Each structure stands twice: as structure tokens, then as C-alpha cells.
């Protein structure tokens, strides 16, 4: 009897320990760039893009499941697999793309630090250098893990959008119709915003980060069903938050014709919930999310690149042991914070443009992934099913076509 209870407890413990990477990855994906993108989409286009968000939620779930499956079957990170399958030249290309996309996202996160602190009247020339040095020190000195949860806690603020969305009393009929009726006006602004939404939802860094964190769990294939649950839950829950950000901004800002030009505009969507405290709430959440991502993304980029080229890595190594690892890490933080400090730069502009770059680059990493996950030598019987291939390939084709349309329309219109 005692044994049976013990076993049940063990199983529960096992499930609890497996659930996590998926949820954390997608929630970390709702960083400064994400909030800004969703808020501006809601404010500018109302509910018109909701159908797209619904569709890319499925794409995201399928793509992240592919990462989880590769992690559990091969026990290797995504850069490891790319290097072993495609050789040095292609790996160099993939890492270059990853670096550019991630660099953009880190710039966005420092822009997030700057604009959140501006809500509290702190100039970016003070907040950005302090946070950059602070994050760098925390990670290098190994005390980052202790404070990570504090910043993670900050981001719970964004769940406030869910309540806010209901309190703003949107026209739910219209919300549901928009979710089911795809509209794609062929105008540059709309398509760019759409690419930005994809870029911030299916960010390239998430694929590398998720796969590595699942590899670290040393999971057995028989426990894979729990991990699958985790990534699906993560994808749907993370995008549910994005959904309500769009709904609440559409119900408040779009209705009053306000376009999001700064963080304080985006904060106004929280007014139905928090009234005059909306700015404090939004500022705190944006700050936490930005710091969290500004620490994680440079780190995961360095790990991915060093893993691909077989260089020594690890935060507890000295500069002499791991020059490339610490060099890349330091370079990303230093240069991206400097970019944000350029005078008269629109922070909101940076936040959104970087997500659009990530969106245009994301299909490249996805193509590498689709080839890998369909390779029988690597995956054995765990290659993609037909349905998984249809959804992932359609996603790639869709994003590529959007980018092509964008280029063509800017050339000819």
C-alpha cells in the first residue's frame, strides 16, 4: 500500500519535473519585442490579425514539438545536429542567421529596459548601462539562477491583460468572427506587422533554447508523452497571453484611434484593470521581461555557436578557457546596449523592427529543422508524420511568401 502511494508520488514528481521547458520558453518569448508588437497590432489593426495568431499557434506547437522530439531522441542540441548533418559551411550560415536574429531581439530587450524605465522617469542613458553591466555581472558571477525567478515573477503582470481584456468589454462576436476569417490586405504596413507577429512568436532563438533545455533534462523516450504535453501547453498558454494583449489593446486603443508610439500608449490598455496604476504595472512587467530575455538570449546564443564549432563553453569558465564563449556573450550585451543609447532613436520603432527581422529570418532555421527531423539516420522511427510536415512546411512557405510579397510591393507600389 505504501509502495503504491510512493509510486504515484514519484510519477507526479516526474511529470512536474518534465513540465517546464516548454512553458518557460514560450513565456520568455513574450518579451519586450513581443509585448510591443502585439500591442501595436491590436491598436493599429484591431482584431484583423487574430486569425493569423490562431494559425501560428498551431505552427508553434508543431515546431516546438519537433524540437522536443529531436532533443529526446538524439540527446543533442540543435546546433550539434546542424553541424553533424550539414558540415561547416552551412553551420556557419545558420549561426550567422541566428546571431543576427538574436542580436536584434537583445537590442529590443534593451529598448524594453529603456522604455519601461522611462515610464518611471529614468533616462535611458542611466537605466541601460546599469542593466547591461548588472546582467553581465550576474551571469558571469553565477548568481543569475538565484535572481531569475524574481524577473520571471515580474512577467506575471502580463496575465493582467487577460483580465483587462474582459473588463474592456470587447465585442466578443467580432472577436470570434475575426479569428475565423482570414483577411490579408496587400499593404506594406499590414504585411510587415504580420511578419513581426510571426517573428516574435516563432523566434529562432526559442528553437535552440528549448531543445537544449530539454536535452539537459536527460529524459527517456518513454517519458516523452509528458514533454509533448509540456510544449503544447506552453505554445497555447503563451499565445493565449498574446491573444489577450491584442484583444485588450484593440478594445481600448483601436476604438479610440490611438496608435502605439511609446510604452505609455501600450500601458493604457491595462487601464480597465488597473486605472491610474496601469503605468506602474506595465512598466514593472516590461522591465522584468526585458531583463530576463537580455540575460537568457545572449547566453543561449553563445552556447549555440560554441556548441556548433566545438568551442569550450560555460559561465564558470575563465576567459582563457573559453574566449569565444565569453567574447560572444560580452559582445552581444555591449553592442546591443550601445545601439539603444543612440540619441533620438524611436524605442518603439526598434522594438517592432527587430521582431520583423526575426520573422523574415525564422524560415531559414525552420528549413534546417525540417530536414533534420525527417532524416531517418538521425531520428529513426521518430521522423515527422505527414501532418507535421504539412503544417511545418506550410508555415515556412507562408512566411517566405509574405516576405517576397513585401519586397515586391515595396519595389512596385
Amino acid at each position, binding site marked *: 500500500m505504501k509502495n503504491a502511494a510512493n509510486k504515484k508520488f*514519484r510519477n507526479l514528481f516526474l511529470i512536474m519535473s518534465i513540465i517546464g521547458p516548454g512553458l518557460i520558453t514560450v513565456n520568455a518569448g513574450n518579451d519586450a519585442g513581443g509585448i510591443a508588437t502585439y500591442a501595436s497590432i491590436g491598436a493599429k489593426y484591431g482584431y484583423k490579425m487574430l486569425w493569423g495568431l490562431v494559425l501560428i499557434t498551431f505552427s508553434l506547437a508543431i515546431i516546438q514539438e519537433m524540437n522536443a522530439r529531436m532533443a529526446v531522441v538524439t540527446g543533442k542540441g540543435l546546433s550539434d545536429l546542424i*553541424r553533424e548533418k550539414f558540415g561547416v559551411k552551412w*553551420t556557419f550560415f545558420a549561426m550567422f542567421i541566428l546571431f543576427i536574429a538574436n542580436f536584434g531581439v537583445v537590442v529590443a530587450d534593451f529598448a524594453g529596459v529603456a522604455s519601461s524605465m522611462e515610464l518611471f522617469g529614468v533616462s535611458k542613458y542611466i537605466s541601460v548601462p546599469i542593466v547591461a553591466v548588472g546582467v553581465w555581472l550576474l551571469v558571469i558571477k553565477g548568481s543569475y539562477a538565484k535572481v531569475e525567478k524574481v524577473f520571471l515573477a515580474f512577467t506575471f503582470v502580463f496575465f493582467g491583460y487577460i483580465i483587462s481584456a474582459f473588463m474592456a468589454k470587447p465585442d466578443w462576436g467580432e472577436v470570434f468572427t475575426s479569428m475565423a476569417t482570414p483577411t490579408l490586405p496587400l499593404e506594406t504596413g499590414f504585411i510587415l506587422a504580420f511578419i513581426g507577429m510571426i517573428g516574435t512568436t516563432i523566434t529562432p532563438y526559442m528553437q535552440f533554447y528549448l531543445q537544449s533545455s530539454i*536535452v539537459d533534462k536527460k529524459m527517456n523516450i518513454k517519458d516523452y508523452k509528458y514533454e509533448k504535453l509540456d510544449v503544447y501547453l506552453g505554445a497555447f498558454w503563451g499565445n493565449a497571453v498574446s491573444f489577450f494583449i491584442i484583444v485588450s489593446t484593440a478594445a481600448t486603443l483601436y476604438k479610440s484611434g490611438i496608435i502605439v508610439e511609446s510604452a505609455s500608449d501600450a500601458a493604457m490598455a491595462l487601464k480597465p484593470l488597473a486605472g491610474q496604476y496601469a503605468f506602474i504595472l506595465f512598466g514593472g512587467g516590461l522591465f522584468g521581461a526585458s531583463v530576463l530575455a537580455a540575460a537568457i538570449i545572449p547566453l543561449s546564443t553563445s552556447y549555440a555557436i560554441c556548441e556548433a564549432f*566545438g568551442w569550450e563553453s560555460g559561465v564558470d569558465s575563465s576567459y582563457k578557457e573559453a574566449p569565444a564563449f565569453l567574447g560572444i556573450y560580452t559582445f552581444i550585451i555591449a553592442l546591443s546596449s550601445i545601439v539603444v543609447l543612440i540619441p533620438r532613436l524611436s524605442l518603439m520603432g526598434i522594438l517592432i523592427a527587430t521582431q520583423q527581422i526575426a520573422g523574415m529570418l525564422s524560415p531559414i532555421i525552420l528549413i534546417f529543422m525540417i530536414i533534420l527531423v525527417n532524416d531517418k539516420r538521425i531520428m529513426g522511427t521518430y521522423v515527422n508524420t505527414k501532418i507535421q510536415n504539412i503544417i511545418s512546411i506550410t508555415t515556412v512557405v507562408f512566411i517566405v511568401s509574405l516576405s517576397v510579397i513585401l519586397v515586391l510591393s515595396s519595389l512596385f507600389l
Partner: protein
Amino acid sequence: MKKSNSLFFSKILYKNISDVTGSIIGKLSDLILDFSSTIPMVKAIEIKNGKRKLYVSSDNLEIHHDGNSNYLIKLNTKTLSVMAISYDDFFVARDFLDKQIVDINGKKVERVNDVMIGLIRGDWKIVAVDIGLRGILRRLGIEYPAILFAGTIKKEFRNKLVYWENVQPLSERISSLQLFTSMNRLTTMHAADIADIIEELDKQNQIKIFHSLDNEKAAQVLEEMEEDFQLSLLETLPDEKASNILEIMPADEAADILEEITNERAERLLVQMESENSTDIRELMEYDEKTAGSLMTKDYISFVANMRIGMVLEELKKLDIKESFSQYIYLTNEKDIFVGFVNLLDVVVADPNLKLNELASISKISVYDENKIDKAMDLSRKYNLLELPVLDENQELVGVVSLNDLLEEYIRLRRSVA
């Protein structure tokens, strides 16, 4: 044009290959190895012509270069001998390049950036593996520009080669059979180094390497690993082998591991052991985690206290000496009650006619099995002891605990609190 006797594989990979008349027959797209000798030999080359693949013997393969690293690859024979190559053969580009190896000398897992081949007594063989940055630059086709650039900032790019005798390949294509026989160079390494390397690898390679070790080595390696690796590897072993390995390990380590797995499996593994060993382990599993008893080992030498030293020395020679024995000899009376302990050196140099308990240097320091680790640490520090006898409530000697194990546990506990 000069004949090449050694070169990097990347210099000829995907380059045109011509026949004896000089007309191009395709691109050299891979080399297939024969592992039957100590240094793997190239037995065939894969030639790609459009979509067609052709496997021919490498017997008449000649490589020339013009000093400017332009290579001319030629099959100097009138008749190409086509070879039957199977999917299970070992391909250099497909199965080795860009994969991981263990550098036995450097004790590290490295990635293969390039491969050096050499013409040895008429055969092309694998000479060394390039694991350095220069190999990556060469593959990217920017080796010489990079060297020129580095020269301007007074830096030098050297090749980082690992010679074949120090290479342990890890590719999935190396079947366990090959790993078991000629290729298993890992067994020459120290158990602690093997443990570090296994911890760095992906799961499939972890399992493959661990399973290729004999029980003795596997026990040593397992002992050196972090707990989560111990558990995940143990899970992959069949009961019989797992039980044999745990039996070889010091009882306290085995007990630690068995406490962490399901009761059903622990019981199955214990039942398969010799009863003497399983009783020891069961006893240790009873102790609370932070007590001296949980860390003690049964590997110690004890004699009845009134034995003559000459007799003791005779008995010592008959012992099956274990690595874990320390420099102390423990003394008990006929009823196993603890009397004291004495340094082995004092025994060796003493008058053989004396009895053990007549030695002047007998120490009576001890801890109880239920004492906390901190207490044992304090005692061993205060009296400069490498090992402490552990007594139960009846003053019986039940085991000894070493400073080494105490320290390891102490550090582990501190870390898990932090």
C-alpha cells in the same frame, strides 16, 4: 605538379577526379574506410557524377598539387575496379567529419573539423584529426586570408592535430562491436576522466561507451559520476549487469544509488548479489543521509587485538588487497568490540614478538554510526586522521569512514543548500 603524400581531406572533398587519360569522371565525394588494421585504411572512394554514385577501389589513387594548394586527383589505372559498398560501411565525410571524438591524450570531447590522410607504404590511411580553428577556416575556404590577417596582428594559427593513436571515434556508425575490440581506447584512461567524458556526451554515446566497459571499470566510472548520471545509466542496464556492477562498488556508494531508485528494482538487484554484499548494502541503506553510518565502507583490515605482530604480517600477505584499503589496521576483541586502531607502518617496523595491543601508538578515536557528518569531520581534522572507525551502540566496529568520502558528501550537502 608534385605528388602529395599527406594532406587534409577537405582539400580534395568535392573536387574533380580524373581517370588515367585525364578526363574528369566526377567529383570525389567520400572515402570509405577499412578498420581491420590498427590505423584505418581507405579502401574505396565515392565518386559522384550528377546524381549517380560510383564506388571504386582506392588502389591507384594519386594526388598531386601545384604548391598553391590546387589539387589534382587521379585514378592511375586503365580499369576502374568497382567495389561493393554497404550502407553499414564507414564513410569519412558522412560518419566522421563534423562528429565528435574523444582525445585520449587531452582527455576531452572534441569535434572533427578536418581529417589528415597520408600515403603509408602504398595505402592511404587516416593519420590525424584536426580539431582546431584553422580546420574550420580551411573548410570555409578562408584559411590563407585568415592567416594573413592574423599575421598583421602578430598572431599565429597553428593546426591542432590529434594523432590517430589518441583518437576514439564516437559516431553512431561505429557499431558496438568495433568499439569493443580494436577501437576501445577509453579503457586506458582513468575512471574519473572517463566519467567526465561520458557526462559531456549525448545519451546514445553515453550508453554505448558505458556498456562497452567491463564490470570492474564500469563500477569505478559509475562511482565517479554525478548522481543523476548514475541513475540514468543504471536504468539502461539489464538487472544482472547492474547488480554485478553495484556489487563491485564500495557498499556505501551502492547504497546511495539504490536508495534513489524504485524499491522494486532495488530489491531485484539486491537479491541477485551475494548475500554478504547485499547485507552490507542493506545495512547502510538503513542510515539517515547525513550520518557517518551512511558513508561508511566495510573495506577495512581488522585483527583481534592480542594477535602477535609476526602473525599479523603473515596474514596481511594473504589478503586480497583492495584499492580502497587505507593505512590503518583496526583492532577488536573476540566479540568484535572496538579496541583501537594503529598505523600500518607502526606495525611493519615493530618487534614481531609483540602483540598488537602492546603497541604504544594505538589510537582510540571513533564515531558512532548515528553521529552527524560534521562531528566526524571535526574529529578527523582535530586528530589529522584520514579514516575514522565507526561503532554501533554496542561499541562494535561496523565500518570505517574516510575523510575523502566525508569531504565529498560535505561539499555536496553545502552545494544543495546553496
